């Protein structure tokens, strides 16, 4: 092993592996985000329910999940659920936990977005005798969702970074790959730096796109 400050040959030798880890990170992020977007909407709708026996428990659950660390939730999904017969691969368990955790965040965005819809829209839908489903799908959501896109985008970027925590439950994503490479050669500088660079190369441009979207929707 050469005594350079930053060994580029070493970097080139492990880069293919690290990129494989990045692919897993991206897969986890996308699947978990879709899950968070759907669960968040369900939680937001549930919290708005006129039946307090639905709205209040869902509200309490959202508050509880938001107030506890993702890492502990991951451990619960990974260590506790199998004891009750729910055995799933770490990749799936981690993705579900990440999606559920961020679902509680996206539900707040949906809630704010739905609250921003003018009362007149609801009244008009009722006056036209629209069914609740048609009111939601045809009137409320199409107006509420576009302004939420920047905020949802922010959470997509956050989830991409937070997915690193899945390394703690043995999901071989970017961070765990970097750590394994480092442990094998006892050189941590290059793998962790390159992992950081890869995270940055994706999340920074994405956050710039989100900023542009924010400006676009703020202008309206």
């Amino acid at each position, binding site marked *: 092993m050469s005594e350079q*400050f930053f060994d580029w040959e070493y970097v080139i030798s492990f880069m293919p592996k690290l990129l494989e880890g990045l692919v897993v990170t991206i897969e986890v992020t996308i699947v978990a985000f879709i899950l968070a977007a759907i669960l968040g909407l369900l939680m937001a709708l549930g919290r708005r329910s006129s039946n*307090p026996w639905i709205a*209040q*428990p869902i*509200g*309490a*659950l959202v*508050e*509880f999940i*938001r*107030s*506890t*660390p*993702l*890492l*502990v*939730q991951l*451990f*619960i999904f990974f*260590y*506790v659920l199998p*004891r009750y017969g729910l055995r799933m691969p770490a990749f799936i368990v981690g993705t579900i936990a990440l999606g559920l955790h961020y679902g509680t965040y996206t539900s707040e965005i949906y809630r704010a977005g739905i609250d921003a819809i003018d009362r007149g829209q609801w009244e008009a839908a009722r006056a036209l005798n629209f069914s609740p489903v048609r009111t939601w799908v045809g009137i409320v959501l199409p107006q509420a969702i576009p302004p939420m896109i920047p905020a949802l985008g922010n959470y997509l970027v956050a989830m991409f*970074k*937070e*997915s*690193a*925590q899945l*390394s*703690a439950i043995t999901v071989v994503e970017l*961070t765990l790959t*970097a*750590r394994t490479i*480092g442990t094998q050669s*006892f*050189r*941590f*500088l290059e793998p*962790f*730096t390159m*992992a*950081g660079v890869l*995270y*940055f190369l994706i*999340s*920074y441009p994405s*956050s710039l796109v989100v900023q542009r979207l924010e400006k676009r929707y703020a202008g309206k």
Partner: protein
Amino acid sequence: MPNEDHLLVKIRNYAFLVIGLLAIGIAIGVELTVNPPETAPFDLLPILLRGLAVTIELTLLGAALALVVAIVAGVARSSGHIIVRTITGFYVEVFRGTSILVQLFWIFFVLPLPPFNLSLTPLQAGVLALGLNVGAYGAEVVRGAIGAIPSGQIEASIALNMSPGLMMRRVIIPQAMVRILPPFGNLLIELLKATSLVSLITLSDVTFQGLALRQSVGRTTEVFLLILVIYFLLAYPLTLGVRWLERQRQWAT
């Protein structure tokens, strides 16, 4: 009576949280009766509470570092000096653009080895990573708050011949503070939750003690549910505090 209704809704809000916590208590109880341990039921708590001390210590030290970093970097990013602005911008974007876990691992695994040879205790590494990461987000909050102050205020201060220091102290900071406090409260909650990550660098916080207990005594369900409740009891008062601050702000403006 609208007031009474409001009160009822409020009580019901908390009632369900209490019911939820009770449900977790019952789950732990059922778990204990199904798989009775040899020792007393709450023998785990003292060990977890030892971890709680580490979690609280980390949260406080991390928050102190984050606060200093956020104010310095936030003011520096609003500075007219291009080099100062670029350097702090680089710091903020790097720490916001990468994963906090990678930052923690970088500080813990890379710094002790050559060429840095800077060995840090796990606690120092944890405080550094948490403080620098949350500080970077805080810097953006500070910058946003400074930027939101109407330029007339600054012009008036200049017209009154205030020195930049006096202007900061008397005009900008008091007004920015109102905007800063609620997001800082949210960051404190994020910091508290992020302290759980130090369990991955062998620092014996609540989560670490839980993982150790799982290995030594088993009783996985009980251990992790207790940990969740501990974090919730720490974080939820902060959440309520932030909401209170937000209401104060709405009332003030």
